[in-house]
């Protein structure tokens, strides 16, 4: 089972991850970070399928992914 960690301070609020997520479980938050950006948040962690598309998409390395136990990888990266 996979866990997405978004760093509020690294996020620039570009929304690319929100768009990239096949599960549509990422969203933009209402809070402004230190650099003046509204940053992305995980809305429904439970439904994450660990595809890593949000991580791959993020231009700012604001998203990391951890998995607990075994995990099927949809594609090699």
């Amino acid at each position, binding site marked *: 089972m996979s866990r997405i960690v978004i760093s509020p301070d690294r996020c620039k609020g*570009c*929304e*690319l991850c929100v768009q990239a997520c096949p599960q549509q479980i990422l969203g933009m938050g209402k809070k402004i970070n230190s650099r003046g950006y509204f940053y992305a948040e995980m809305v429904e962690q439970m439904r994450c399928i660990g595809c890593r598309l949000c991580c*791959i*998409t993020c*231009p700012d390395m604001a998203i*990391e992914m951890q998995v*607990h136990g075994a*995990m099927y990888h949809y594609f090699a990266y």
Partner: protein
Amino acid sequence: MAETVFARPKALADVTTHYCPGCTHGVIHRLVAEVIDELGVRDRTVGIAPVGCSVLAYNYFNVDFHEASHGRAPAVATGIKRARPELIVFSYQGDGDLASIGMAEIIHCANRGEKVTVVFVNNAIYGMTGGQMAPTTMPGQVATTCQLGRDVEQAGHPIRIAELMSTLRTPAFVARATVHDPLTVIHAKEMLRRAFAYQVEGRCFSLVEILSTCPTNWGIPPAESAGWLEENMLPYYPVGIFKTPDGGSREPKPLAD
């Protein structure tokens, strides 16, 4: 126990970049860093930063770096590689830097067959200086030096670097990729891996052109920039491999006339 399956590559410095929100320079940086890690050459890699938005690249990679003058990165790369052939040398250049002021240097570096790798970021505009027309700007695209849109009668058509470079006789690896959506990012990384691998093997010069977004100067929100790139740039800048050191030469023959 939790295992981190996606994290910052070692070759990528742990800092926040100055890039605008949604600018895919950031993605391309990460891909280059991942390839350097995976090939295990971080300790003998030297990067060359261009003059452009990626001018500060030397702050974003954990490898020795050399800041080139505008457009001359391939000449700087030549100097470094000739001085220390054991080093893995790559330049990272924008389209104004490489395709405009740096045209002579990139063509001659490739034609000499310098064993270096060029990461060419084509975002169809001058980002750093605030959105002037680039040689790669699309017909009709608005920029601050063509505010009514690029007029091909006055400024000509966009230059396709991958095509142009692939017609040189000297063996090389030349490819084009894009990073406007996650799946294309995976292909882009594969192209970069091959480009660096050819250098590690001492085979040939390699260049990967990567289509990139510039939401700020395109005046298009990041989320819509990918779509703009796909609609406007992809058809004119086809993705794929244009030349391999094994394949023959690719220049046109005289017309039957």
